[in-house]
């Protein structure tokens, strides 16, 4: 039988009472230039990893703002750090650092969870 699950998508509602902003605040603290992202998608268009997989830097930015830490921790692994996104960014956002910070913070949160 065909997989028709896409007809019934899971809820994408964001509950602001349980909004996980730990990742976002961390990134903004150390890389404030992320504030200026306009989600233009230039980074995604040039991405070397995006060429090989469905990796999408723009989506990383969106998920970061929505606090979807779970999804991010899987997706962020695909980045190859080549730095093309940073070079094409029209807002001069240091995207390589954003990715590094996300990876670092996720590792920190995992550590906190295991010790707590």
């Amino acid at each position, binding site marked *: 039988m065909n997989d028709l699950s896409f007809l019934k998508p899971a809820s994408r509602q964001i509950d602001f009472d349980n909004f996980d902003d730990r990742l976002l605040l961390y990134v903004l603290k150390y890389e404030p230039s992320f504030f200026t992202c306009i989600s233009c998608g230039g980074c995604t268009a040039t991405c*070397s990893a995006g060429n090989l997989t469905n990796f999408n830097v723009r989506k990383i930015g969106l998920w970061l703002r929505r606090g979807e830490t779970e999804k991010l921790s899987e997706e962020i692994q695909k980045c190859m*750090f080549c730095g093309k996104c940073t070079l094409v960014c029209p807002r001069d956002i240091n995207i390589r650092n954003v990715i590094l910070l996300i990876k670092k913070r996720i590792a920190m949160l995992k550590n906190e969870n295991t010790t707590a």
Partner: protein
Amino acid sequence: MEKLIILPFSIGFIYLLGILGFRVVKWVGGLSRLDKLRLIHSFKTRRFFDSIKEVFMEGLLHRKIFRKNPVLGYMHMSLAFGWFLLIVVGHIEVMVSRQSLIAPIYLPVFFRYFETDHSFMLSGIFSFLMDLLLLFVLSGVALALLKRFKKKLFGMKKTTRLKTGDRIALLSLWMIFPLRLLSEGMSAGLYGNGSFLTSTLGHIFGNLNSETANLSLWTAYSCSLGFFFAALPNSRYMHIPTEILLIFVRNAGVKLKKRNNTYTNIQVFSCSRCGLCLDNCQLSAAGINNTQSVYILKNIRNHNLSDEQLFNCLLCGKCEVDCPVGINTIDLRITQRIESTRQYNSSYKYLEDGPVPKADTVYFAGCMTHLTPGIIASMKKLFHLAGENVWFMDEEKAPCCGRPLMLAGQYEAASKLIANNTRKIIGSGAKKLVVSCPICYKVFKEDYELANVEVVFHAEYILNLLQQEIIALKKGSDRIIYHDPCELGRGMGMYEPPREVLRTTGKVIPIKNEKHMAHCCGGSLGNLKISQVERSLLRNQAVEDYLRYRPDVLATACPMCKKTFSRHPNLKVLDISEAVANALQISSDQESTKEKMKLEIHEFELI
């Protein structure tokens, strides 16, 4: 009672010896088994004598600092070599006077105090020599004082900020020799055992000379020595003993292997915080003044290194060039980055081993070259003219070379990409791998194991085409400045091939800041923290320097440098491959219109 004056000196000296012994055992013991064997083996070979020579030339004479600036070199030499000679001649003097080879260690230090009868063999010559040497050391102390106020005289623009421990050690070091002069002068006045310097001083003291004053001066001298020895292990002066160990360990072939071990400590403690790396670091042009190598080394030593500092470095390697101790700052920093990011390396499970076409030559453009399509077009044109059977490996899709990951410290993740690329390159059965990006070139050369595939940088490849007269160029009259990319120049030591290629297209002007002192363009992938604004400040600094020579073209051999410089409005920037492609002289048989059209279409299709 008189013997009490040796107490401060002896306590400090014994404490120092204890700490040094403990640290040497800890550091050498912490090396891997293989490294220990290397070290032991090196004692049996010629390297041992090389090390001794290096200790003498660098540790005492400070040859490298002399080359950098003669006044600075003299200051260091007079203090180190002068003090060393004072100790050696002092010991010989004691041995001669006592006519025995064994003398207590403190005796040469306080010889003029204890040895009032001054009529042994050659005593006049010895006291003359000792006075001369003391004068030599004092001239160094005077220069060191002067350096605090006029560092420009010493060829330095900046010096490091000192910690309290450093200040105590520095102050007591400065006090040692003037106090020695005063106390020896007083003793010379009392007992007549001095020479030209101390006797004169004794005469000047005249009526002030007394046993109590003499005793207190000698006690002060002993205290300053004791303080210096006690402060040494926790100050920057720890570099004096550590550097000797470093030279032996380094010459034995010990290297940092992507992991912290005690070799890190040996290097970190060898840093004298002289600040020579500060003047070379371009980051200060962007107002960044706390991430230079000297501060990173200090932070590693004090266990307070933050990511913000660690990743804020261009890894351009300019600090390594002038380091008088020869600390491998780049490896050290990358190792710290590896340690800091060890927890979050990616596995890249999505990488696939697809079918690989067979070819004689593989061309890997690299991610950065894909952002400068002019380079790819020029390379394709050249491959076409050379009649090469090329597989353009990353034309459609391919993983990155792995170098950017390595620069960010993710060594394990990079090795996944390396394995995937290696399988593809070897699978193609090629004999040659051509790369047009120095970032890729470095990793292909150093970290890939490609069996018998030769890795060729496009400058070498083009030079070979020119030498074999496969392509001919029309020499123009353009004034060209060649910008050495960091990864290619300081990173791989390739300075001449790109210049030779450019000489066939125009006039290459020599400039002051080139080769190992070349600027970084500011675009470096090594730095993860600086903003684009700061990067452009660095770029402008380099461009300003280049524009003074009024070049028509700024040529480089790196797509990253090209991209960075291209953002500057008043500059024509070309990669060497583009410069060559522009100057191509199509030989008569190739000039047939059909071929020409083919070439044009070839180019058109690509851009």
